[in-house]
């Protein structure tokens, strides 16, 4: 990323003297490559296994093996106590696809991921712009923003379930006192309010990480780029749209992709805030899968595993996008 920005700095900085970071560029020619080739140690597979063995064991035993178990379970029939009864063929997958609530669950997932990530990115851009400024008490604000990031999601969600409470909740109290609403709202029981209420919590807990990524992105933009924009007579708005945002693109991409993964996999918020509501009306694919195995009347492990496979495929698609993002950055730099 640094090289990417450096290039942009050199391009826009033509009216200014050449920025200092560009200086080492000519020296980094074939000489450096040869040196690197000579220096980089080579090692045998045996030695590698010694150093990487423990990591491979752990990943193999607790990530790969459960993934295999998941696939196996998706093709099996289970009793309600979890004993394997036999082969199920593709029945579990068909049951998931034929599930009457699947449409609603998929729609919820789409809304949940898209709205939470979009709002998070927008609000975080503003928060980051603010945090990048130098002012008295900035450190305190930065520490305050860490709290929702560090705190357990279940605990935050549990606190929100009290804040949203129809009778005793602070939110209804404040909104009625301010005459925003005349009668209290059942934020977690009313069908049209449940998803927005959960989305608010999702955005709230996702902002800190995202804002921190953007602050790092903003700090990586060289000062002289802004200097050049100012000398060229750019208005603050023009500077933001034409200079800041384009140079923030790598940070924006990384934050968006990571947030998509986190938000898609998010479990505790929906699990905690939606626990009053029966059925799957406000579930995402993740809580849907979990309920199938552990909470629904059927306790159908096989069907839940099949739903899990669909989830993993969805995540893999995101992983591919993520890898492309990383690659795109390397090519750029």
């Amino acid at each position, binding site marked *: 990323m640094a090289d990417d920005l450096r290039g942009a700095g050199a391009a826009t900085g033509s009216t200014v003297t050449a920025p200092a970071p560009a200086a080492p560029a000519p020296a980094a020619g074939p000489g450096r490559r040869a040196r690197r080739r000579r220096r*980089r140690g080579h090692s045998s*597979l045996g030695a590698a296994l010694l150093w990487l063995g423990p990591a491979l064991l752990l990943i193999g035993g607790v990530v790969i093996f459960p993934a295999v178990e998941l696939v196996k379970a998706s093709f099996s029939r289970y009793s309600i106590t979890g004993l394997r009864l036999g082969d199920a063929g593709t029945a579990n997958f068909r049951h998931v696809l034929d599930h009457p609530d699947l449409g609603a669950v998929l729609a919820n997932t789409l809304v949940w991921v898209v709205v939470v990530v979009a709002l998070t990115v927008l609000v975080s851009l503003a928060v980051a712009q603010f945090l990048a400024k130098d002012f008295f008490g900035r450190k305190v604000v930065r520490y305050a923003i860490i709290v929702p990031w560090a*705190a357990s999601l279940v605990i935050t969600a549990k606190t929100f379930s009290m804040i949203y409470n129809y009778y005793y909740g602070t939110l209804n109290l404040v909104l009625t006192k301010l005459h925003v609403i005349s009668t209290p709202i059942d934020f977690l029981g009313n069908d049209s309010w449940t998803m927005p209420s959960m989305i608010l919590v999702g955005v709230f807990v996702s902002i800190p990480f995202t804002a921190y990524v953007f602050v790092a992105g903003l700090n990586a933009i060289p000062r002289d780029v802004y200097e050049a924009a100012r000398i060229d007579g750019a208005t603050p708005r023009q500077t933001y749209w034409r200079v800041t945002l384009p140079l923030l693109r790598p940070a924006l991409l990384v934050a968006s992709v990571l947030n998509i993964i986190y938000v898609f996999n998010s479990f505790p918020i929906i699990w905690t805030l939606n626990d009053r509501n029966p059925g799957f009306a406000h579930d995402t694919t993740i809580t849907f899968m979990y309920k199938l195995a552990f909470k629904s009347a059927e306790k159908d492990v096989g069907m839940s595993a099949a739903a899990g496979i669909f989830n993993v495929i969805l995540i893999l698609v995101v992983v591919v996008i993520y890898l492309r993002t990383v690659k795109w950055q390397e090519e750029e730099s």
Partner: protein
Amino acid sequence: MAAIAHPSDRAAVRVPTRRKVGWQRHRRWVLPVAGLFVALAFLWPYLVMLLNSLRPSSDVVQTPATILPRTWQLSTYAQVLGDERFLAWLRTSVLVAVTSTLIVILVSIPAAYFTARFRFPGRIAFLFLVLVTQMFSPTSLVVGLYREFFNLNLVNTYLALILTNAAFNLAFAVWILHGFFSAIPREVEEAAHLDGCGRLRTLLRIMLPLTLPGVVTAIVFTFIAAWNEYVVALTLMLDEGKKPLTVGITSYVTGYEQHWDQLFAASIFAIIPVVILFAFIEKHLVGGLTAGSIK
């Protein structure tokens, strides 16, 4: 750099500058005040938590709702600290978080160091495997994890929880340490070699002290992730006394009992250590989380 600006540019710059002078005078108090509001925007749920922990449960659930307690009560904290259940949950959380962090550090340092320093067959494959692991969460594999531990008779054991937390946080630790090790100039290591240091001694004596910020970041992130883990603990730890805090404290408020005061006091206890740890590595937060993808 400003001194280089051509004199003729000055006139064009002057108009915005005058407005800027007024802003410069005001920003000294506008920004801190705005900062206060931003801080409050992120802290208010935790202030609600704190205020609710300082009032009796009957006062939490009394209409009309109030923001400040009608009766203040500090004894809940002592009550929670004397509660056998809470102490058992706390014990589990500490045990699981500390042990899995130890495992992650012991396993990730050699792996990260080796992949950062040496070329060997399968290096790219290994790094790819780590990256893919990072994309999976225990949540997406929870049914498979449950089946595995069910078959191994490890449901309801600390070992299952520790292994899960260690495995799923390993990828992140490897990535961040890989970045730190790669950043150390090779000359440093070569000098150590010339002085007669073996590979392991070079790693322990020379490399580790230089990558200390990375190691600390990896430790804190793993500890916090393990401390806050929920789904796997919810699924595997069925025994009341073996649950960690995240799962345990929700049983303060169920259909059978409604101890809101204890729920919130226990919540305060549960978030204080992680907030302090996070504040401790505040400078490295971003470098940590986006290790390998943004630098």
